[in-house]
Protein backbone atom coordinates (compact mmCIF):
# COMPACT_ATOMS: atom_id res chain seq x y z
CA UNK A 1 0.00 0.00 0.00
CA UNK A 2 1.21 3.51 -0.82
CA UNK A 3 -0.32 6.52 0.89
CA UNK A 4 0.86 9.97 -0.15
CA UNK A 5 -0.48 13.16 1.41
CA UNK A 6 0.40 16.61 0.14
CA UNK A 7 3.95 15.74 -0.81
CA UNK A 8 6.24 18.62 -1.73
CA UNK A 9 9.76 18.33 -3.03
CA UNK A 10 11.81 21.45 -3.60
CA UNK A 11 15.33 21.28 -4.98
CA UNK A 12 18.15 23.24 -3.34
CA UNK A 13 18.07 25.75 -6.15
CA UNK A 14 14.42 26.50 -5.45
CA UNK A 15 12.80 24.49 -8.25
CA UNK A 16 9.52 22.97 -7.11
CA UNK A 17 9.69 19.44 -8.37
CA UNK A 18 6.54 18.19 -6.65
CA UNK A 19 3.68 20.26 -5.36
CA UNK A 20 1.02 18.83 -3.12
CA UNK A 21 0.85 15.33 -4.55
CA UNK A 22 -1.83 13.18 -2.88
CA UNK A 23 -2.97 9.70 -3.79
CA UNK A 24 -3.55 6.22 -2.47
CA UNK A 25 -2.48 2.94 -4.03
CA UNK A 26 -4.27 -0.07 -2.62
CA UNK A 27 -2.73 -3.43 -1.88
CA UNK A 28 -2.05 -5.32 -5.10
CA UNK A 29 -2.93 -2.43 -7.39
CA UNK A 30 -0.84 -1.58 -10.42
CA UNK A 31 -0.74 2.14 -11.05
CA UNK A 32 0.91 3.89 -13.98
CA UNK A 33 2.59 7.21 -13.30
CA UNK A 34 2.68 9.22 -16.50
CA UNK A 35 3.66 12.69 -17.54
CA UNK A 36 5.96 14.63 -19.80
CA UNK A 37 9.68 14.86 -19.11
CA UNK A 38 10.27 16.99 -16.06
CA UNK A 39 6.78 16.40 -14.75
CA UNK A 40 8.19 14.89 -11.59
CA UNK A 41 7.70 11.16 -12.08
CA UNK A 42 11.22 10.12 -11.11
CA UNK A 43 11.29 12.68 -8.33
CA UNK A 44 8.14 11.21 -6.84
CA UNK A 45 9.55 7.70 -6.91
CA UNK A 46 12.83 8.81 -5.38
CA UNK A 47 11.03 10.81 -2.72
CA UNK A 48 8.98 7.80 -1.69
CA UNK A 49 12.17 5.91 -0.79
CA UNK A 50 13.98 8.84 0.69
CA UNK A 51 16.54 9.40 -2.05
CA UNK A 52 15.02 12.83 -2.63
CA UNK A 53 14.12 14.67 0.51
CA UNK A 54 10.50 15.73 0.83
CA UNK A 55 10.18 19.33 1.95
CA UNK A 56 6.60 19.00 3.10
CA UNK A 57 3.80 16.46 3.30
CA UNK A 58 3.87 12.85 4.32
CA UNK A 59 3.87 9.38 2.88
CA UNK A 60 3.33 5.88 4.13
CA UNK A 61 4.89 3.11 2.06
CA UNK A 62 4.28 -0.54 2.85
CA UNK A 63 2.86 0.56 6.17
CA UNK A 64 5.98 2.48 7.16
CA UNK A 65 5.97 6.21 7.71
CA UNK A 66 8.41 8.05 5.45
CA UNK A 67 11.03 9.57 7.73
CA UNK A 68 14.79 9.61 7.89
CA UNK A 69 15.04 7.10 10.69
CA UNK A 70 12.60 4.71 9.02
CA UNK A 71 14.47 4.62 5.75
CA UNK A 72 16.28 1.31 6.28
CA UNK A 73 13.05 -0.45 7.20
CA UNK A 74 11.11 1.29 4.45
CA UNK A 75 13.67 0.34 1.84
CA UNK A 76 13.51 -3.27 2.94
CA UNK A 77 9.84 -3.29 2.06
CA UNK A 78 9.72 -0.98 -0.90
CA UNK A 79 11.88 -1.87 -3.87
CA UNK A 80 12.82 0.47 -6.70
CA UNK A 81 13.78 -0.67 -10.16
CA UNK A 82 15.85 2.21 -11.52
CA UNK A 83 15.87 3.58 -15.00
CA UNK A 84 19.35 2.38 -15.88
CA UNK A 85 19.98 -1.28 -15.04
CA UNK A 86 23.72 -0.65 -15.26
CA UNK A 87 23.41 1.38 -12.10
CA UNK A 88 21.68 -1.44 -10.34
CA UNK A 89 23.88 -4.32 -11.43
CA UNK A 90 27.13 -3.41 -9.77
CA UNK A 91 28.39 -6.78 -8.57
CA UNK A 92 30.70 -9.27 -10.22
CA UNK A 93 27.96 -11.72 -11.20
CA UNK A 94 24.19 -11.66 -11.47
CA UNK A 95 24.04 -14.07 -8.55
CA UNK A 96 25.97 -11.64 -6.36
CA UNK A 97 23.72 -8.78 -7.41
CA UNK A 98 20.55 -10.68 -6.61
CA UNK A 99 22.10 -11.84 -3.33
CA UNK A 100 23.19 -8.31 -2.39
CA UNK A 101 19.85 -7.30 -0.86
CA UNK A 102 19.25 -10.49 1.15
CA UNK A 103 22.82 -10.39 2.43
CA UNK A 104 22.35 -6.83 3.63
CA UNK A 105 19.20 -7.96 5.37
CA UNK A 106 21.41 -10.20 7.44
CA UNK A 107 20.13 -13.50 6.09
CA UNK A 108 22.29 -16.59 6.49
CA UNK A 109 24.20 -17.68 3.43
CA UNK A 110 22.11 -20.85 2.94
CA UNK A 111 18.91 -18.84 3.12
CA UNK A 112 20.38 -16.31 0.70
CA UNK A 113 21.08 -19.19 -1.70
CA UNK A 114 17.51 -20.42 -1.52
CA UNK A 115 16.08 -16.95 -1.92
CA UNK A 116 18.24 -16.13 -4.92
CA UNK A 117 17.46 -19.39 -6.68
CA UNK A 118 13.72 -18.96 -6.19
CA UNK A 119 13.73 -15.39 -7.48
CA UNK A 120 15.81 -16.37 -10.49
CA UNK A 121 13.40 -19.21 -11.17
CA UNK A 122 10.35 -16.94 -10.87
CA UNK A 123 11.79 -14.64 -13.49
CA UNK A 124 13.12 -17.46 -15.61
CA UNK A 125 16.72 -16.30 -15.57
CA UNK A 126 18.48 -19.09 -13.68
CA UNK A 127 20.89 -19.51 -16.57
CA UNK A 128 22.09 -15.92 -16.10
CA UNK A 129 23.24 -16.31 -12.55
CA UNK A 130 26.95 -16.77 -13.11
CA UNK A 131 27.07 -14.28 -15.97
CA UNK A 132 28.78 -10.95 -15.59
CA UNK A 133 26.31 -8.07 -15.70
CA UNK A 134 28.21 -5.97 -18.18
CA UNK A 135 27.92 -8.68 -20.81
CA UNK A 136 24.16 -9.09 -20.67
CA UNK A 137 21.83 -7.84 -23.34
CA UNK A 138 19.51 -4.90 -22.61
CA UNK A 139 16.55 -7.12 -21.90
CA UNK A 140 18.54 -9.51 -19.75
CA UNK A 141 19.94 -6.61 -17.76
CA UNK A 142 16.48 -5.26 -17.15
CA UNK A 143 15.09 -8.55 -15.89
CA UNK A 144 18.20 -9.14 -13.79
CA UNK A 145 17.79 -5.69 -12.24
CA UNK A 146 14.20 -6.53 -11.39
CA UNK A 147 15.43 -9.74 -9.77
CA UNK A 148 17.86 -7.81 -7.59
CA UNK A 149 14.95 -5.85 -6.19
CA UNK A 150 12.50 -8.71 -5.85
CA UNK A 151 14.98 -10.81 -3.91
CA UNK A 152 14.34 -8.58 -0.92
CA UNK A 153 10.70 -9.71 -1.07
CA UNK A 154 9.29 -6.20 -0.88
CA UNK A 155 5.58 -5.59 -0.62
CA UNK A 156 5.68 -2.55 -2.87
CA UNK A 157 7.73 -2.18 -6.04
CA UNK A 158 8.35 1.13 -7.82
CA UNK A 159 9.48 1.09 -11.45
CA UNK A 160 11.22 3.93 -13.25
CA UNK A 161 10.77 3.49 -17.02
CA UNK A 162 10.97 -0.33 -17.05
CA UNK A 163 10.58 -0.68 -20.82
CA UNK A 164 12.91 2.09 -21.98
CA UNK A 165 15.76 1.22 -24.37
CA UNK A 166 14.46 -2.26 -24.97
CA UNK A 167 13.97 -3.92 -28.31
CA UNK A 168 10.41 -5.08 -29.08
CA UNK A 169 11.02 -8.65 -27.96
CA UNK A 170 12.59 -7.64 -24.66
CA UNK A 171 9.88 -5.05 -24.11
CA UNK A 172 7.25 -7.72 -24.58
CA UNK A 173 9.09 -9.91 -22.06
CA UNK A 174 9.17 -7.19 -19.45
CA UNK A 175 5.55 -6.18 -20.03
CA UNK A 176 4.44 -9.79 -19.60
CA UNK A 177 6.56 -10.06 -16.47
CA UNK A 178 4.97 -6.95 -14.97
CA UNK A 179 1.54 -8.42 -15.58
CA UNK A 180 2.52 -11.59 -13.72
CA UNK A 181 3.98 -10.03 -10.60
CA UNK A 182 1.75 -10.03 -7.55
CA UNK A 183 3.16 -6.90 -5.92
CA UNK A 184 1.69 -3.47 -5.31
CA UNK A 185 3.29 -1.48 -8.12
CA UNK A 186 3.76 2.13 -9.13
CA UNK A 187 5.19 2.32 -12.64
CA UNK A 188 6.56 5.59 -14.00
CA UNK A 189 6.59 5.28 -17.76
CA UNK A 190 6.51 6.92 -21.17
CA UNK A 191 5.34 3.64 -22.67
CA UNK A 192 1.64 4.43 -22.75
CA UNK A 193 0.71 1.21 -24.50
CA UNK A 194 2.39 -0.85 -21.83
CA UNK A 195 0.70 1.28 -19.17
CA UNK A 196 -2.67 0.58 -20.70
CA UNK A 197 -1.93 -3.13 -20.88
CA UNK A 198 -0.43 -3.62 -17.44
CA UNK A 199 -2.04 -1.08 -15.16
CA UNK A 200 -5.56 -0.69 -13.96
CA UNK A 201 -5.11 2.88 -12.82
CA UNK A 202 -3.14 5.89 -13.99
CA UNK A 203 -1.93 9.08 -12.33
CA UNK A 204 -0.98 11.99 -14.55
CA UNK A 205 1.61 14.52 -13.40
CA UNK A 206 2.31 17.89 -14.93
CA UNK A 207 4.87 20.38 -13.67
CA UNK A 208 5.00 18.56 -10.35
CA UNK A 209 1.26 18.63 -9.81
CA UNK A 210 -1.32 15.92 -10.17
CA UNK A 211 -3.44 16.45 -13.22
CA UNK A 212 -5.57 13.35 -13.04
CA UNK A 213 -6.02 10.11 -11.15
CA UNK A 214 -8.36 7.42 -12.34
CA UNK A 215 -8.87 4.18 -14.27
CA UNK A 216 -6.12 3.76 -16.86
CA UNK A 217 -8.64 2.96 -19.54
CA UNK A 218 -10.40 6.27 -19.05
CA UNK A 219 -7.33 8.43 -18.68
CA UNK A 220 -5.21 6.99 -21.42
CA UNK A 221 -8.01 7.20 -23.94
CA UNK A 222 -8.90 10.79 -23.10
CA UNK A 223 -7.25 12.62 -25.98
CA UNK A 224 -7.85 16.09 -24.59
CA UNK A 225 -6.44 15.21 -21.20
CA UNK A 226 -3.37 13.57 -22.67
CA UNK A 227 -2.75 16.47 -24.99
CA UNK A 228 -3.05 18.90 -22.13
CA UNK A 229 -0.50 16.90 -20.16
CA UNK A 230 2.00 17.19 -22.96
CA UNK A 231 1.38 13.58 -23.94
CA UNK A 232 -0.37 11.68 -26.69
CA UNK A 233 -2.74 8.77 -26.92
CA UNK A 234 -1.11 5.35 -26.77
CA UNK A 235 0.14 4.37 -30.22
CA UNK A 236 -2.16 1.39 -30.19
CA UNK A 237 -5.06 3.79 -30.11
CA UNK A 238 -3.80 5.78 -33.06
CA UNK A 239 -1.41 8.15 -31.29
CA UNK A 240 -2.24 11.74 -31.95
CA UNK A 241 -6.00 12.19 -31.86
Amino acid at each position, binding site marked *: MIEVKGLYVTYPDGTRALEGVTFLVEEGERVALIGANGAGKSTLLMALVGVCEASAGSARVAGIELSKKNLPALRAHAGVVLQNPDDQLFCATVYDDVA*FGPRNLGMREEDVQTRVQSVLAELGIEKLQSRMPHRLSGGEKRVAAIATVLSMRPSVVLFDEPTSFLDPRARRQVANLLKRLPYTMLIATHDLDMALEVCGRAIVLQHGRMLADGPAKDILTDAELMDGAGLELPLGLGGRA
Partner: protein
Amino acid sequence: MSRLSDAMADLYAVEQLAEKDTPVHRMHPLAKLLTALAFVVAVVSCGRYQPLRLAPFTFYPVLLSAMADLPFGRLLRRAALALPFAVVAGASNLFFDTAPAAHLWGVPVSGGTLAFASVVLKAYLSVLALLILTATTRLADLSAQLVRLKVPPVMVTVLTMTYRYLSTLMEEASSMSAAYALRSPYAKGVKLAHMGQFAGQLLIRSADRAERVYAAMKLRGYAGPVPGGRGVPMGRKDWVYLIGVLAAVAAARLVDVPSAVGGLLGGMA
Protein backbone atom coordinates in the same frame (compact mmCIF):
# COMPACT_ATOMS: atom_id res chain seq x y z
CA MET B 1 40.61 6.15 -30.66
CA SER B 2 41.59 2.77 -31.97
CA ARG B 3 43.26 2.04 -28.64
CA LEU B 4 39.86 2.06 -27.05
CA SER B 5 38.30 -0.28 -29.56
CA ASP B 6 41.36 -2.54 -29.46
CA ALA B 7 41.20 -2.67 -25.69
CA MET B 8 37.48 -3.40 -25.72
CA ALA B 9 37.93 -6.16 -28.27
CA ASP B 10 40.83 -7.61 -26.26
CA LEU B 11 38.81 -7.60 -23.08
CA TYR B 12 35.86 -9.24 -24.75
CA ALA B 13 38.03 -11.92 -26.36
CA VAL B 14 39.66 -12.85 -23.06
CA GLU B 15 36.32 -12.90 -21.27
CA GLN B 16 34.89 -15.22 -23.88
CA LEU B 17 37.80 -17.59 -23.41
CA ALA B 18 37.39 -17.50 -19.65
CA GLU B 19 33.76 -18.61 -19.99
CA LYS B 20 34.72 -22.00 -21.40
CA ASP B 21 34.13 -25.15 -19.44
CA THR B 22 37.21 -27.33 -19.28
CA PRO B 23 38.98 -29.12 -16.44
CA VAL B 24 41.40 -26.23 -16.25
CA HIS B 25 38.63 -23.65 -16.10
CA ARG B 26 37.00 -25.61 -13.31
CA MET B 27 40.09 -25.55 -11.13
CA HIS B 28 40.02 -23.35 -8.08
CA PRO B 29 41.07 -19.77 -8.96
CA LEU B 30 43.61 -19.63 -6.16
CA ALA B 31 45.29 -22.81 -7.30
CA LYS B 32 45.68 -21.32 -10.76
CA LEU B 33 46.91 -18.01 -9.40
CA LEU B 34 49.50 -19.60 -7.13
CA THR B 35 50.79 -21.96 -9.80
CA ALA B 36 51.09 -19.11 -12.28
CA LEU B 37 53.01 -17.08 -9.73
CA ALA B 38 55.30 -19.99 -8.88
CA PHE B 39 55.89 -20.53 -12.58
CA VAL B 40 56.85 -16.93 -13.14
CA VAL B 41 59.17 -16.88 -10.13
CA ALA B 42 60.86 -20.10 -11.24
CA VAL B 43 61.30 -18.86 -14.80
CA VAL B 44 62.61 -15.52 -13.69
CA SER B 45 65.05 -17.12 -11.26
CA CYS B 46 66.77 -19.11 -13.97
CA GLY B 47 70.37 -18.24 -14.56
CA ARG B 48 71.25 -15.22 -16.57
CA TYR B 49 73.29 -17.15 -19.03
CA GLN B 50 71.17 -20.26 -19.20
CA PRO B 51 68.45 -19.78 -21.77
CA LEU B 52 68.35 -23.48 -22.56
CA ARG B 53 67.29 -24.29 -19.01
CA LEU B 54 64.01 -22.59 -19.85
CA ALA B 55 63.03 -25.31 -22.31
CA PRO B 56 61.17 -27.62 -19.92
CA PHE B 57 59.08 -24.69 -18.77
CA THR B 58 57.32 -24.68 -22.10
CA PHE B 59 55.31 -27.67 -20.94
CA TYR B 60 53.24 -25.38 -18.72
CA PRO B 61 51.77 -23.03 -21.32
CA VAL B 62 51.50 -25.67 -24.02
CA LEU B 63 49.78 -28.31 -21.92
CA LEU B 64 47.52 -25.87 -20.12
CA SER B 65 46.30 -24.17 -23.24
CA ALA B 66 45.70 -27.52 -24.90
CA MET B 67 43.71 -28.79 -21.94
CA ALA B 68 41.84 -25.52 -21.66
CA ASP B 69 40.95 -25.37 -25.33
CA LEU B 70 42.71 -22.07 -25.82
CA PRO B 71 43.77 -20.88 -29.27
CA PHE B 72 47.50 -21.32 -28.87
CA GLY B 73 48.49 -19.42 -31.98
CA ARG B 74 46.49 -16.41 -30.91
CA LEU B 75 47.99 -16.60 -27.43
CA LEU B 76 51.50 -16.67 -28.86
CA ARG B 77 50.82 -13.64 -30.98
CA ARG B 78 49.20 -11.77 -28.12
CA ALA B 79 52.15 -12.57 -25.86
CA ALA B 80 54.55 -11.38 -28.51
CA LEU B 81 52.96 -7.93 -28.36
CA ALA B 82 54.16 -7.55 -24.81
CA LEU B 83 57.76 -8.28 -25.69
CA PRO B 84 59.19 -5.00 -27.04
CA PHE B 85 60.20 -3.56 -23.67
CA ALA B 86 62.02 -6.74 -22.71
CA VAL B 87 63.66 -6.99 -26.11
CA VAL B 88 64.93 -3.44 -25.95
CA ALA B 89 66.19 -3.90 -22.43
CA GLY B 90 67.75 -7.22 -23.28
CA ALA B 91 69.50 -5.69 -26.26
CA SER B 92 71.83 -4.02 -23.80
CA ASN B 93 73.15 -7.46 -22.98
CA LEU B 94 73.88 -8.10 -26.64
CA PHE B 95 75.88 -4.94 -26.92
CA PHE B 96 77.72 -4.85 -23.65
CA ASP B 97 78.38 -8.47 -22.82
CA THR B 98 80.54 -9.67 -25.67
CA ALA B 99 82.93 -12.12 -24.05
CA PRO B 100 82.41 -15.62 -25.37
CA ALA B 101 80.71 -17.77 -22.83
CA ALA B 102 79.98 -20.95 -24.71
CA HIS B 103 80.73 -22.74 -27.89
CA LEU B 104 78.16 -24.41 -30.04
CA TRP B 105 79.62 -26.51 -32.80
CA GLY B 106 82.78 -24.50 -32.68
CA VAL B 107 81.07 -21.11 -32.94
CA PRO B 108 81.69 -18.83 -29.98
CA VAL B 109 78.55 -17.48 -28.40
CA SER B 110 78.84 -14.33 -26.34
CA GLY B 111 77.46 -14.14 -22.86
CA GLY B 112 75.36 -11.27 -24.08
CA THR B 113 73.64 -13.39 -26.67
CA LEU B 114 72.81 -15.97 -24.06
CA ALA B 115 71.55 -13.33 -21.71
CA PHE B 116 69.49 -11.70 -24.42
CA ALA B 117 67.94 -15.01 -25.38
CA SER B 118 67.28 -15.65 -21.74
CA VAL B 119 65.52 -12.32 -21.22
CA VAL B 120 63.35 -12.68 -24.29
CA LEU B 121 62.37 -16.25 -23.50
CA LYS B 122 61.64 -15.39 -19.89
CA ALA B 123 59.49 -12.49 -20.99
CA TYR B 124 57.60 -14.68 -23.41
CA LEU B 125 57.01 -17.45 -20.90
CA SER B 126 55.92 -15.17 -18.08
CA VAL B 127 53.49 -13.23 -20.25
CA LEU B 128 52.08 -16.47 -21.63
CA ALA B 129 51.54 -17.77 -18.11
CA LEU B 130 49.66 -14.63 -17.21
CA LEU B 131 47.52 -14.69 -20.33
CA ILE B 132 46.63 -18.30 -19.73
CA LEU B 133 45.70 -17.50 -16.15
CA THR B 134 43.32 -14.80 -17.30
CA ALA B 135 41.93 -16.89 -20.13
CA THR B 136 41.02 -19.69 -17.76
CA THR B 137 39.88 -17.77 -14.72
CA ARG B 138 37.10 -15.24 -14.55
CA LEU B 139 38.10 -12.18 -12.57
CA ALA B 140 34.78 -12.39 -10.75
CA ASP B 141 35.73 -15.83 -9.44
CA LEU B 142 39.31 -14.84 -8.69
CA SER B 143 38.48 -11.73 -6.70
CA ALA B 144 35.89 -13.59 -4.66
CA GLN B 145 38.74 -15.82 -3.51
CA LEU B 146 41.29 -13.10 -2.88
CA VAL B 147 39.90 -12.46 0.58
CA ARG B 148 41.19 -15.91 1.50
CA LEU B 149 44.69 -14.66 0.73
CA LYS B 150 44.16 -11.94 3.29
CA VAL B 151 43.74 -9.24 0.68
CA PRO B 152 41.83 -6.38 2.36
CA PRO B 153 38.12 -6.51 1.44
CA VAL B 154 38.14 -2.87 0.33
CA MET B 155 40.80 -3.70 -2.23
CA VAL B 156 38.83 -6.67 -3.49
CA THR B 157 35.65 -4.64 -3.83
CA VAL B 158 37.39 -1.84 -5.70
CA LEU B 159 39.01 -4.39 -8.01
CA THR B 160 35.69 -6.10 -8.69
CA MET B 161 33.83 -2.87 -9.29
CA THR B 162 36.51 -1.37 -11.48
CA TYR B 163 36.38 -4.47 -13.60
CA ARG B 164 32.60 -4.48 -13.63
CA TYR B 165 32.41 -0.96 -15.00
CA LEU B 166 35.42 -1.23 -17.26
CA SER B 167 33.57 -2.01 -20.46
CA THR B 168 30.73 0.33 -19.53
CA LEU B 169 33.10 3.25 -19.17
CA MET B 170 35.12 2.29 -22.22
CA GLU B 171 31.95 2.25 -24.27
CA GLU B 172 31.01 5.64 -22.98
CA ALA B 173 34.47 6.99 -23.77
CA SER B 174 34.22 5.35 -27.15
CA SER B 175 30.96 6.98 -28.08
CA MET B 176 32.24 10.33 -26.83
CA SER B 177 35.33 9.83 -28.97
CA ALA B 178 33.24 8.95 -31.98
CA ALA B 179 31.13 12.06 -31.49
CA TYR B 180 34.30 14.13 -31.20
CA ALA B 181 35.93 12.55 -34.23
CA LEU B 182 32.85 13.14 -36.33
CA ARG B 183 33.11 16.84 -35.58
CA SER B 184 36.88 17.10 -36.01
CA PRO B 185 37.62 15.24 -39.19
CA TYR B 186 41.23 16.36 -39.42
CA ALA B 187 42.27 15.52 -35.91
CA LYS B 188 44.01 12.25 -35.14
CA GLY B 189 42.99 12.27 -31.56
CA VAL B 190 41.54 14.64 -29.07
CA LYS B 191 43.34 17.94 -29.29
CA LEU B 192 45.30 18.77 -26.19
CA ALA B 193 43.30 21.94 -25.78
CA HIS B 194 40.10 19.92 -25.61
CA MET B 195 41.34 17.21 -23.29
CA GLY B 196 40.30 19.12 -20.24
CA GLN B 197 36.69 19.21 -21.33
CA PHE B 198 36.69 15.77 -22.83
CA ALA B 199 38.19 13.85 -19.95
CA GLY B 200 36.51 16.24 -17.55
CA GLN B 201 33.09 15.43 -18.98
CA LEU B 202 33.82 11.75 -18.70
CA LEU B 203 34.92 12.24 -15.11
CA ILE B 204 31.77 14.13 -14.20
CA ARG B 205 29.59 11.53 -15.86
CA SER B 206 31.46 8.85 -13.97
CA ALA B 207 30.94 10.66 -10.69
CA ASP B 208 27.22 10.96 -11.46
CA ARG B 209 27.06 7.29 -12.29
CA ALA B 210 28.74 6.52 -8.99
CA GLU B 211 26.05 8.56 -7.24
CA ARG B 212 23.34 6.49 -8.89
CA VAL B 213 25.09 3.25 -8.07
CA TYR B 214 25.45 4.40 -4.49
CA ALA B 215 21.74 5.17 -4.37
CA ALA B 216 21.01 1.73 -5.80
CA MET B 217 23.21 0.19 -3.13
CA LYS B 218 21.52 2.12 -0.34
CA LEU B 219 18.12 1.14 -1.64
CA ARG B 220 19.09 -2.49 -1.24
CA GLY B 221 20.16 -2.02 2.31
CA TYR B 222 23.84 -1.23 1.92
CA ALA B 223 25.09 0.11 5.20
CA GLY B 224 28.81 -0.13 4.64
CA PRO B 225 31.44 -1.19 5.09
CA VAL B 226 32.25 -3.40 2.19
CA PRO B 227 29.92 -5.73 0.30
CA GLY B 228 31.08 -9.15 1.32
CA GLY B 229 32.18 -12.02 -0.85
CA ARG B 230 32.49 -15.58 0.20
CA GLY B 231 35.49 -17.74 -0.49
CA VAL B 232 35.07 -21.32 -1.55
CA PRO B 233 37.61 -23.70 -0.08
CA MET B 234 39.86 -25.71 -2.38
CA GLY B 235 38.76 -29.22 -3.11
CA ARG B 236 40.90 -32.31 -3.44
CA LYS B 237 41.30 -31.93 -7.21
CA ASP B 238 42.47 -28.38 -6.70
CA TRP B 239 45.10 -29.42 -4.16
CA VAL B 240 46.31 -32.17 -6.46
CA TYR B 241 46.63 -29.65 -9.28
CA LEU B 242 48.39 -27.12 -7.09
CA ILE B 243 50.91 -29.51 -5.63
CA GLY B 244 51.41 -31.33 -8.91
CA VAL B 245 52.18 -28.20 -10.86
CA LEU B 246 54.39 -26.77 -8.12
CA ALA B 247 56.38 -30.00 -8.08
CA ALA B 248 56.72 -29.97 -11.86
CA VAL B 249 57.83 -26.35 -11.82
CA ALA B 250 60.37 -27.08 -9.11
CA ALA B 251 61.67 -30.05 -11.07
CA ALA B 252 62.01 -28.01 -14.22
CA ARG B 253 63.91 -25.40 -12.28
CA LEU B 254 66.23 -27.73 -10.44
CA VAL B 255 66.90 -30.41 -13.01
CA ASP B 256 68.98 -29.53 -16.04
CA VAL B 257 66.63 -31.24 -18.45
CA PRO B 258 68.17 -30.13 -21.76
CA SER B 259 71.65 -31.29 -20.80
CA ALA B 260 70.28 -34.54 -19.45
CA VAL B 261 68.33 -35.20 -22.62
CA GLY B 262 71.24 -34.13 -24.79
CA GLY B 263 73.63 -36.22 -22.75
CA LEU B 264 71.28 -39.21 -22.95
CA LEU B 265 71.22 -38.90 -26.70
CA GLY B 266 74.97 -38.81 -26.81
CA GLY B 267 75.18 -41.76 -24.46
CA MET B 268 72.68 -43.83 -26.39
CA ALA B 269 74.63 -43.90 -29.60
